């Protein structure tokens, strides 16, 4: 399983990261660059530890917003796709607006939402707007990709609409839905961050993006980097978790989860 080639493949990006950090650290020291211009990686790490109280609280806020936006996007996207699948007229009436919501940059919508909605609600709505479309379009694609002969077989055995949906369309669409959710996970984090920055308010319940903006005003550059690092890690973990769930659900039967063995 783990051939030398695989090990090298894993080690290469790690080596690149280590080299990059070393060069960065060395440059900062050699040219005596001030922390408010460019903090060294070690200083960023120290800041991450020393400011952990503030940063972890902000991380929690952002993650909660992301999760709420993601769940709303997942439920909303799948539910809309199911509705569209049951009624073509509904799809014709509403799909253009889903596209309009998707193509209008969320950073331009966010200030408007903040006028009409409470901040916490607005942030979640932002995350939802960015994240629901891939779920909607992927689920729609999956539901429409049903094997024609299998559909004929269901018809032959007198399957009801509900049976066709539950036993044929939804399982068949699962790989597409999971693909959409994987994209939506990262996007809902982006949506949350965009909304936080647009909101820009102080006080309790401030997320990581707000910390970045705030640290920027105060020229606390090391903390900006530390918060950015946390955001990036959160994104990676979200993607990894969703990929794992997808793999666990599909590994028995779907081509995408088979790997190189067959």
């Amino acid at each position: 399983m783990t051939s030398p080639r695989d090990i090298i493949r894993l080690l290469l990006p790690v080596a690149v990261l280590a080299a990059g950090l070393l060069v960065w650290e060395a440059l900062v020291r050699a040219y005596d660059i001030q922390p408010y211009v460019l903090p060294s990686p070690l200083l960023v790490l120290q800041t991450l530890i020393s400011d952990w109280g503030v940063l972890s609280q902000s991380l929690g806020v952002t993650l909660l917003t992301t999760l709420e936006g993601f769940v709303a996007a997942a439920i909303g996207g799948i539910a809309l796709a199911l509705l569209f699948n049951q009624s073509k007229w509904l799809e014709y009436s509403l799909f253009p607006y889903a596209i309009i919501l998707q193509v209008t940059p969320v950073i331009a919508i966010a200030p408007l939402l903040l006028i009409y909605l409470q901040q916490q609600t607005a942030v979640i709505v932002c995350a939802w707007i960015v994240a629901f479309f891939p779920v909607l379009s992927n689920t729609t694609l999956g539901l429409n990709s049903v094997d024609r002969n299998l559909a004929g077989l269901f018809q032959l055995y007198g399957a009801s609409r509900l049976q066709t949906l539950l036993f044929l369309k939804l399982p068949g669409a699962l790989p597409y839905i999971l693909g959409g959710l994987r994209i939506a996970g990262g996007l809902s984090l982006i949506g949350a961050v965009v909304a936080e920055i647009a909101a820009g308010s102080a006080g309790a319940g401030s997320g990581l993006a707000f910390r970045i903006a705030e640290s920027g005003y105060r020229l606390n550059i090391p903390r900006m980097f530390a918060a950015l690092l946390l955001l990036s890690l959160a994104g990676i973990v979200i993607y990894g978790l969703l990929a794992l769930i997808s793999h666990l659900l599909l590994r028995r039967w779907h081509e995408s989860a088979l790997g190189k063995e067959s």
Partner: protein
Amino acid sequence: MAQSVAPDTKAAAVRLRGVTKIYDTGVAALGPLDLDVNSGEFVSLLGPSGCGKSTALRLIAGLSAPSAGTVELSHRGAQRPGSHRIGFVFQEPTLMPWATVRDNVRLPFRLAHAPAADADTRIDDALDQVGLAEFAGAYPRELSGGMKMRVSLARALVTDPDILLMDEPFAALDEITRFRLNNDLLSLWRSLHKTVIFVTHSVFESVYLSQRVIVMTARPGRIGAEFRISAPEPRGEEFRTSAEYAAFCREVSNALAPSYAGQRGA
């Protein structure tokens, strides 16, 4: 040119009268077609691609409605729960990739309105009949093409249908596997007394399997010729190499030739 075949006195399991199919695009795919298939008979529909033979099968199955004419299936007495009059085998195995072999064969029961109490036994029997009892827990992707086709056959048989409709079921398989499945199908037909309507574009396969071969014309498909393959039963591999078999094949091929006449590259 159609050679008349004396009508059997036995009850017709399937009766088509003046059936035509014209698609929304205006293409006339089939007919007018008159066809009687007797109960327990093995009939092949043979013809070039696009001649409407698959369309005919879908009309008989009720998957599509005729543009004109009538499709009648004989009624048998009270059906036990979970029974279904028609079993259908497609050209592709058409299995649900997310379900095990056993769950794929269970599908007709799962969709049935009256649950069958003996479903599990019948699934076991059907898997036994196609020789896949050991693979009940496998997923389709773990099976070879021939084995997938066997699952498809088991699913069609599990409801104990009167009529088995098969749409070029072995066309995508290699020759050895196809021959083996031909023989297994024949022995199942002999033991289960099903009416089989078998669509194929292979002269050899149709002659080997059928009691009657119906040669269809190019689109819109009509009956061009009929042959009764009066070879003794049960047939086995030795029939494939017999002079009798070769003679039947030549006769059927000659009747099929005009269907290809208008096609370029044929």
